[in-house]
């Protein structure tokens, strides 16, 4: 049985007994080819997304396998993009799975020459302290001409335009409550 199967799996045998005597097709098909299936086939889920590059807003389908992004493709349902993507959109998987992506908080001391690692929690506390301190130190109740301004010019922000609306909303809301007015983004540039 074993030997017979072994011989039967020899393509030459298939050449001699099958419909592909020249061994250019059916007889030459390998086990890998017979078992081939696209990796999207076994994805755990397909998540609908939007391309993060330009503002055309192409639809994307994000395939997830084992908690990892395994493929990103255009969403054919999108009336904007009809499933198509440009080179950047097509490189989205590389963008989100890039090995050079930073995954740890890094900290550079004043006058320091190298990065140091810093736990995220600690960084959040330190940044909050800096914000409160700088705000207090640079707070303007009134400007030089006595007009009420209620603000700080000591803190500024420049945001990209790849942020979600909800993120921009929280930023603007928090900054405004902080009295920080120098809040800007790519739209000015």
């Amino acid at each position, binding site marked *: 049985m074993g030997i017979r199967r072994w011989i039967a799996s020899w*393509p030459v045998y298939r050449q001699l007994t*099958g*419909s*592909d*005597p*020249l*061994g*250019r*097709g*059916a*007889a*030459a*098909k*390998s*086990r*890998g*080819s017979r078992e*081939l*299936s*696209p*990796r*999207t*086939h076994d994805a755990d889920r397909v998540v609908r997304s939007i391309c993060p590059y330009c503002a055309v807003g192409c639809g994307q389908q994000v395939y997830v396998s084992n908690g990892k992004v395994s*493929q*990103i*493709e*255009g969403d054919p349902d999108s009336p904007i993009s009809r*499933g*198509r*993507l*440009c*080179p*950047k*959109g*097509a*490189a989205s*998987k*590389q963008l989100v799975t890039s090995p050079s992506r930073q995954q740890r908080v890094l900290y550079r001391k004043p006058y320091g020459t190298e990065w140091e690692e810093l736990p995220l929690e600690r960084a959040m506390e330190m940044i909050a302290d800096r914000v409160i301190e700088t705000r207090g130190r640079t707070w303007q109740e009134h400007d030089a001409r006595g007009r009420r301004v209620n603000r700080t010019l000591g803190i500024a922000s420049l945001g990209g335009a790849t942020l979600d609306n909800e993120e921009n909303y929280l930023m603007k809301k928090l900054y405004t409550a902080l009295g920080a007015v120098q809040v800007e983004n790519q739209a000015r540039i």
Partner: protein
Amino acid sequence: MSSVYRLSGLLADPAGEAGYRDDHPERVGFFTDTSVCIGCKACEVACKEWNLVPEQGLDLLGQSYDNTGALGADSWRHVAFIEQRVPDPSVTSSGTDLGMPGIGAPEQPAAAEEGSGMRWLMSSDVCKHCTHAACLDVCPTGSLFRTEFGTVVVQEDICNGCGYCIPACPYGVIGQREGDGRAWKCTLCYDRLGDGLEPACAKACPTDSIQFGDLDELRERADRRLAELHQDGVGEARLYGRDPDDGVGGDGAFFLLLDEPEVYGLPPDPVVTTRDLPAMWKHAAAAAASVAATVVLSFLGRRR
């Protein structure tokens, strides 16, 4: 070779000829309409993302915006960029001389968009999935094989890197991957086809320059498009690889070009090398017979 197993010429059903049963799927392919290619290279990236093709290195080639250079083991799609000067009616009419020498296409594209003074041809090249595929024919291991879709695919679990397919390809498509040793090229996304998906490049192509489908249907579509362009005065438009009677029996991936094929780096009249294989074997047999005869002859006559 028997007439059933043809090595060249018309062949209606390459998958059937390769031993697949009559219920095998229709032959599929690409029609790449370069008249709407915007050279974005989405095809190159989408292909690499799907097929996990390695990066091929950073190298500014200075060939217009083409930094890929050619098809190969690590570039299964390659967008060619060709800058050409063409007459500029607005310049001649205002009598200004831009000092443009008269180089450019020998048959000057009549309908090159007037006024531009130049045109920029872009074309996404890919494996042609020939009806008579030399790479497949010469492959000694059966790694390269004809799929049930009529396409030509390297089986990576088989290839032993003998390299024979590489000089056999009349288009210079297939290449050997450094550090891996095996031969690689476009699979027409064989794995996706099995799942009813279209190849990654065709799916991504923003302007539908790369069209995927049943080959017969694509050929009709291409004929219509060609007629349309000719009607619009784009006389230099031509189909390349569409003719099932050409030297490779027609390409599974064919093109609408706006200049001579060689301008895009394509051979003007490729012929599958195995077309001549029967003749080659005959010559080799004759030569072998000559060798045998010579040996025998040398031992005739005086012993010393």
